[in-house]
C-alpha cells in the first residue's frame, strides 16, 4: 500500500491574516493618556457645624474671573501669565513675626510683608468664577494656581531631600518595593504639609 505523505499546509497567507488583525487593532486602539488636575471638594454642608473661624483679610488671596474672562486678583486687573508669580509671592510671604502668636515660617523666602499672608498653612486662595466664565479660562487659572504650589513644593523638596516634588509624585506608581513607596509617600506628605493646598471656590452672585 502506498503511503501518502500528508501535504504540507501552505502558511504563506498566515502573515496576511495576522496583518489584517494587527491593522484592525492598531486602528481601534486609543492608548490612554488621561491626565488632569486633581482637586478635592469640600465636605457636604453640615448645618450643625460650628461657624468657621474668621479669616483675616491678609491671609486671603482673592481671585475673580468674570464672564468676559478677565482676571481680577486682590482688586487689581491682572494678566494670566502674572498670576503664578503673584500666588507664589502671597504663599511664600511668611509675614508672621518670630515668636508671635502665629507660628513663624522659617522656610519661607518671601518678602515677609506684614500685610500679606502670615504663614503658608494660614494662606487661603479664594477663586470665584462667574457662571458664564469659559471653562478653558477656569482650567487655566486652576492650572496657574497649581503651578504656584508645585513650584514651592519642588523648591522645598529640593532643599530637604534633593529631588523634585512633582517628579517624585509622578514616579510613585513605578516604584518597585512597597517600603520605598511608603517612604516616598511619607516624604511627599511632609512637603505637602509645608505648603498645604487650600483653595476655596465660590460662585459669583447673580445680579
Amino acid at each position, binding site marked *: 500500500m502506498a503511503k501518502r505523505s500528508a501535504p504540507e499546509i501552505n502558511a504563506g497567507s498566515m502573515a496576511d491574516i495576522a496583518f489584517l488583525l*494587527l491593522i484592525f*487593532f492598531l486602528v481601534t486602539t486609543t492608548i490612554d493618556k488621561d491626565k*488632569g*488636575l486633581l482637586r*478635592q*471638594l469640600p465636605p457636604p454642608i453640615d448645618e450643625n457645624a460650628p461657624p468657621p473661624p474668621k479669616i483675616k483679610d491678609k491671609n486671603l488671596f482673592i481671585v475673580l474671573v468674570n464672564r468676559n474672562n478677565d482676571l481680577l486678583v486682590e482688586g487689581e486687573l491682572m494678566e494670566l501669565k502674572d498670576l503664578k508669580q503673584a500666588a507664589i509671592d502671597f504663599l511664600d510671604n511668611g509675614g508672621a513675626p518670630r515668636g508671635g502668636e502665629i507660628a513663624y515660617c522659617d522656610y519661607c523666602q518671601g518678602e515677609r510683608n506684614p500685610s500679606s499672608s502670615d504663614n503658608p498653612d494660614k494662606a487661603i486662595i479664594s477663586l470665584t468664577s462667574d457662571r458664564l466664565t469659559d471653562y478653558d479660562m477656569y*482650567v487655566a487659572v486652576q492650572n496657574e494656581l497649581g503651578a504656584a504650589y508645585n513650584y514651592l513644593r519642588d523648591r522645598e523638596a529640593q532643599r530637604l531631600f534633593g529631588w523634585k516634588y512633582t517628579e517624585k509624585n509622578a514616579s510613585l*506608581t513605578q516604584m518597585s518595593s512597597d517600603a520605598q513607596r511608603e517612604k516616598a509617600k511619607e516624604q511627599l506628605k511632609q512637603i505637602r504639609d509645608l505648603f498645604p493646598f487650600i483653595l476655596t471656590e465660590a460662585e459669583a452672585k447673580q445680579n
Partner: protein
Amino acid sequence: MSKFKKKGGGELPPISTASLPDIVFMLLFFFMVATVLRKNNLKVDNILPPANQTEKLDKTRTVFIYVGKPKDQYVKGRGTEANIQIGDKFVDIPELKAAIFEEVNKLRDELRSKVVVALKVDEGANTGVVNDVKKELREANLPKIIYITTQGESVQ
C-alpha cells in the same frame, strides 16, 4: 576535482519569511493587550482644555462625567447648551446623583470608597454647569475630582 565544490554560482539563497508571522503576531498581541475598547459613546462635543500641571489618573477607580454641547444629531432633543453625559445617556442636574451612584456601583467593591470623579468638560462650556455638577458631587460625598485636560501650555 575537489570534494567541496561550490554548487551553483554566487546566488543568494532566498530570505526565509517563515518568521514573519511570528513577528506580526507579537505586534498583534501587544496591541490586543494595550487596546481599551471605548465603553461610552460620546454624545457631546469634547475638546479638552490644555494644562501643564497635571497628574496621571488611576483608571480603575474612576467614574467619568462628560460635559459639552450635544452633537448635531441630539441638538433637536437637548438644545445647544452644554449638557451632561454619564455612561451612555444624557443626565440633568436633578438626576445626577442617582446616575453617578449607578456608575459607582459598577466598580469593584474595595474601590468604591476611593472613587475619583473625572470631569471631561469641553473647553467651550461655561463654568456654571461645572459648578452645578461639583455641588451635586459635594452633596453626594464624592470629594475627589479631576479635571481631565490635554497636555499643553494654558498661558499664551
